[in-house]
């Protein structure tokens, strides 16, 4: 079996540190599949991550990689892209990293429309620290900091990204492997802020606490609850309960920040400097 994607990994950093049955590796592979599909090189692509299980992915990937501080991946990525627009910038983040401590950076990143692709590994929990509730833990699900179930309503990160101005928004899951890679690759094509939520199973910190069964059972849950966008739109409200749409959720045209700022440079005469 040909494994052309292996060259994108730092073989000497493997095996990874994720738990058996974790979905993060699937998403990481989907990202490099998309990179390969688009023909991005390892020299002109930067992977930026935050803190948490998801964000350890950057260390395994053979590019220029930046493992930032908790929640701060998008500001670092913003600086990288604006400083050197030739670079392709991919951000790897998690549900806690992106929507809790990094929530403000997330919405402003979407608003500014800097050309980057943000892949949020949504495992519904803080996995690295042992299973505390995140802003994307579904309502009434259990966590170590919500032993009786959460009472605060979760974010829909895709709605949030769209409302804040992201120009490409999609969702997929670690079960829908090829679809996920396609959604990421399409995000790469968008000249602006692209956001892809990748739902992943966390059997250790989320599934176990909520009696969701084995990793395979959790993937079956994704298969059965992730509904393709076209079908979702036809689904009556009462049948949407407990399910979520996957696929391309939003796309629009807007000038990206670097292009817009280039005009500022031209007005100021800096293009001749």
């Amino acid at each position, binding site marked *: 079996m040909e494994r052309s994607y292996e060259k994108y990994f730092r073989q000497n*950093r493997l095996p990874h540190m994720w738990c058996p049955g974790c979905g993060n590796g699937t998403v990481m592979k989907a990202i490099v599949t998309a990179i390969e599909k688009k023909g991005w090189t*390892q*020299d*002109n692509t*930067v992977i*930026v991550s935050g803190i948490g299980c998801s964000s350890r992915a*950057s*260390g395994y990937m*053979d*590019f*220029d*990689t*930046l*493992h*930032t*501080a908790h929640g*701060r991946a*998008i*500001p*670092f*990525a*913003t*600086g*990288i*892209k*604006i*400083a*050197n627009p*030739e*670079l392709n910038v991919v951000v790897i983040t998690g549900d806690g990293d992106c929507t809790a401590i990094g929530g*403000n*950076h997330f919405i*402003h990143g979407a608003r500014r429309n800097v050309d980057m692709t943000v892949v949020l590994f949504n495992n519904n929990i803080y996995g690295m620290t042992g299973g505390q509730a995140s802003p994307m833990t579904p309502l009434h699900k259990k966590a170590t900091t919500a032993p009786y179930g959460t009472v605060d309503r979760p974010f829909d990160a895709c709605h949030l990204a769209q409302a804040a101005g992201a120009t490409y928004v999609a969702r997929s899951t670690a079960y829908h492997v090829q679809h996920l890679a396609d959604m990421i690759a399409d995000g790469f094509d968008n000249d602006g802020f692209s956001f892809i939520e990748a739902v992943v199973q966390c059997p250790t910190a989320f599934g176990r606490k909520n009696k969701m069964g084995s990793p395979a059972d959790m993937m079956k849950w994704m298969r059965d609850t992730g509904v393709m966008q076209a079908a979702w739109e036809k689904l009556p409200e009462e049948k949407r309960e407990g399910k979520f749409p996957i696929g391309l959720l939003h796309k629009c045209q807007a000038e990206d920040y670097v292009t817009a*700022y280039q005009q*500022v*440079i031209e*007005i*100021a*005469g*800096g*293009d001749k*400097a």
Partner: protein
Amino acid sequence: MSEARLMQGNEACAEGALAAGVRFFGGYPITPSTEIAEVMAKLLPTLGGKFIQMEDEIASMGAILGASLAGKKVLTATSGPGFSLKQELIGYAACAEIPSVIVNVQRVGPSTGQPTSPSQGDVMQARWGTHGDHPMIALSPWTVRECFDVAVMAVNYAERFRTPVIVLMDEIVGHLREKVELPDMDQIDCYPRRQPTATRAEGYQPYRPEKDLVPNVADFGTGYHIHVTGLIHDETGFPSGSPQVTQEAIRRLHKKIEIAQDEITHYEEFFMEDAEYAVVAYGGTARTAYEAVRIARQQGIRVGLVRLMTIWPFADKIISQTAAKVKGILVPELNYGQLVGEVERVVRGACPVELLAKYNTEIFVPQEIVSAIEKLCAGGNA
């Protein structure tokens, strides 16, 4: 020299950074530093550089660190509350060794405090504001021209040592207007971005220290595929849980500054040749202290001024030498007493050290410091 201009300290600071090669600024408006962002917004694009107003000071730090890793010389500017927010990523910059300059134009705190009033209350925050063990370089200018010079110096030190450098201004010098003559731009000595001296094939390691204990970390996009992290890492750049690696990493961060301390400790002495007493001052307060020392001299008191430009690392050697030859030291500060603790630590009882503290939003007037000098001479408390 270029022609004389009437300039503000904040403006001079911004122009100094540009002259030193800064081509990326990320910031968030806050009094009394905002003019630095405004000058950058106006001038950076004229040089092909980039300005971005971020959503907060944390994001501003993140943006400049990203831009620095992508090869640009970078600056951000703030004041007290914003400086607190930046501390998280100042620590990141120290650990991951990312060249970056942070200007803090100090105002009265804590908290929102007195936003438009001068203070020197962030001396210790500049040194210890971020978490964990780390070295720090902080420079404090006392004139508008020196705001320019210190900005150049800060950018050069950030690049040379691959470390965050603090320009510790205060509202006095930040908003002061003076006639200045700036050096010709082609006369500015700019420390270039350090470059790898080996290829990947030759076994290049991004965090392997050179002779000066500073690593030549490759810029992103130059084909080295490096990994940068705020976790403690070995010379490969990848995290390590090893006690030896951790100890060596933290030791090297300190040592790379310690071995250069004499070079980066800048100070001036006035009337110290025959001085029996010394005033140790910095920033805007040193301006008043200078006048006070002149007045006291006219009254026949043999007093001099040691004016510190480098606040961190602290000028142990010069203060220790001063203590050995005077009968007493006065430290006027626009705070409840911060740098005076460092003076006392170094003096170790060799002579009396008196604090003149002021924290009511007003700057010192010379007579206050003259009176404190007189009391010091009389052996009383300031």
